């Protein structure tokens, strides 16, 4: 629940960001959230920061499987199918 039914503060926005990204804010709250972002440059930048954070986290490497490990697994698979 927000402090007011007509507007939300920046302090509230930073707590609602994740739910907003997830599409889990109730319709009225999502509307207040977007209204706020429409006039508040600071919060628009904060939301962008959160998006950039998610992207940055996603970059933590997807590593390829080392060849030896791959071989061992294939062997295990062949054993299993027998």
């Amino acid at each position, binding site marked *: 629940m927000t*402090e007011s039914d007509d507007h939300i*503060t*920046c*302090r*509230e926005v*930073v*707590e609602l*960001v*994740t*739910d907003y990204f*997830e599409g*889990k804010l109730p319709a009225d709250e999502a509307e207040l959230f977007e209204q706020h972002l429409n006039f*508040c*440059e*600071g*919060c628009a*930048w*904060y939301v*962008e*920061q*959160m998006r*950039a*954070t*998610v*992207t*940055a*986290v*996603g*970059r*933590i*490497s*997807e*590593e*390829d*499987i*080392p060849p030896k*490990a*791959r071989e*061992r*697994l*294939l062997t*295990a*698979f*062949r054993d*299993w*199918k027998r």
Partner: protein
Amino acid sequence: MGQVQEEHRTSPAAAEEAELLARLREGDERAFESLVESHHGRMIAVALNYVKTRDIAEEVVQEAWLGVLRGLDRFEGRSSLKTWILRILVNTAATRGGREGRSLPFSSLAPAGEESPAVEPERFRPPGEAFAGHWNSYPGDWTTLPEEALSGRETLAVVKRAIAELPESQRSVITMRDIAGCSADEVCETLEVSPGNQRVLLHRARSHVRAALERHLDD
């Protein structure tokens, strides 16, 4: 949980998965290879939540795959293959990491009433004053930063360190969601946590990482 299973059974992804399972059970090596390849990165990332070193993580992942093979004939498809594989991994990793084989539900692990705000209160105008709750000074506009600032090695190191600092429950959720690319439903099933709880944990984790990035980029 029932909703997830229902959606899974009827989705196009389910049909694809049924085919993959059939090929695996027939002993199709290529199918197995591609399965292993497609999951490797995220399994390592998740394993590293529980064990200290890269090498041990590789071992844990290997062990998990053996567990997958052992259970493959009995797998009924009630959850997605990916969720099932990750659950085996989590259990394997948690056991190896020195905890009990059965992971406790996170709701029982999260400290009650731990309310750390996403941003320190001092960043906002105090209650009772004009424009209460609004930024004292705005956060930075990261869209003006050069590409490398957010993708370079130093930044990645900051992100990794920030994630390592997180309490286990937050670390697991952000790893599975934002590194391993699991859906919210998959995370809830695998970690046995409610959707609401999952979001709270994800929120705290991301907020912490953002703050670390902000400190790094402000320097």
